[in-house]
């Protein structure tokens, strides 16, 4: 009973964080902030949801598999965000501050 309540709490929290991530993805002004929003919330949401799910299993093989998935996600997802941001930077994309800064100089 306690486990179930705890698990529900985790799942709802996880869903909430994913949701904020999505809002960030849409509302943030430039590429880097958007990647930031998506990747940070993604990690915490994954942790919460998988823990929530583990609490619902009978702690056997399924729980171990879920843990494996968690480790895998924690390895790959930030790496993917990192690679995205880095190649965007490499490709010449500027951050918001940088794009504004030279404009001011032009005006001056």
């Amino acid at each position, binding site marked *: 009973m306690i486990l179930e309540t705890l698990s529900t709490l985790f799942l709802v929290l996880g869903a909430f964080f994913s949701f904020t991530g999505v809002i960030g993805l849409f509302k943030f002004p430039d590429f880097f902030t958007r990647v930031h929003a998506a990747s940070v919330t993604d990690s915490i949401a994954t942790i919460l949801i998988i823990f929530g799910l583990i609490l619902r299993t009978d702690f056997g093989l399924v729980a171990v598999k879920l843990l494996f998935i968690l480790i895998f996600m924690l390895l790959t997802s930030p*790496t993917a965000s990192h690679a995205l941001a880095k190649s965007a930077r490499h490709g010449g994309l500027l951050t918001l501050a940088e794009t504004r800064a030279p404009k001011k100089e032009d005006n001056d």
Partner: protein
Amino acid sequence: MAEFIDLVLLGMLAITALRVIFLKDLFAVVMLFGIYSFLSALIFVNLDAVDVAFTEASVGAGISTVLMLGTLALTGRKEKTSNHPALLPLLVVGVTGAALIYGSLDMPPFGDPNNPAHQHVAPRYIEDSPQEIGLPNMVTSVLASYRAFDTLGETAVVFAAAIGVLSLLGLPKRDRQAIESGLKSHLVLRVVAKLIIPLTILFALYVQFHGDYGPGGGFQAGVIAAAAIILYALVLGLPMATHVVQPALLKTLAALGVLIYAGTGVANFFLGGNFLDYNMLASDPVAGQHIGIILIELGVGITVFAAMLSIFYAFAGQAERTNIQ
């Protein structure tokens, strides 16, 4: 509840498909296609087709998308506006769609256990296959034994595709000077990739040999193993990858896989059974079935791995060539 999830996912699919129609940026189109595949994989899970979902996620969303992106790198990412009159396609689609809706009016209700499809043929697979084949995964039983000839055809299709792509694009040469063309500056990526690639191959082996008990099998395993090498090629560069897994070897492997499969079938001729009748492979029919299924799944896995990887090599070799020029 399942119906509600189904409806939401279908709605998302519809939006994705509509977006694809109107977008002119092909890069976005391909990405949306990847999303479309993942969403349909979710629908497959929701409709109890876990094996299909697994395949769709690894093939539709994985391999197809990678190949499409590889093609876009060579052909440019903008679709030009067409001056085709859009009326005729609309008319054709309208008529076809109307015919389908008309046909759907007499369809058996969705999910009803009394539908003809669930009353004839299929019950035997559900009730008897665990005894006749001895495997808990009915999909594997049907795929590898009852309808093994379809699967042999499927392997032949993959082999034919590999032949087609090789004849069109050719394989990259191996003995070229190994230039470091990978993502050298991406240190994090390289470290993580090196961590993940062995795990992926391990997972592929698990899927290959655990397919009898859970979702998975030769096809999915082959694709996952190929994906591991593709990741290697993406991060460390194609020349490095061709050093590890040589293109010529792949050609041999693809051919061998088909031969293993068909050879298993032919072996039964000489043991007194029909083509692909594994009952003869051991003294006990169920044991024979098991041996047969492991063998043919191995054949499928090898061919799919080799074919998918050589197709990727062919595309990547083209991209590399244009980069150098």
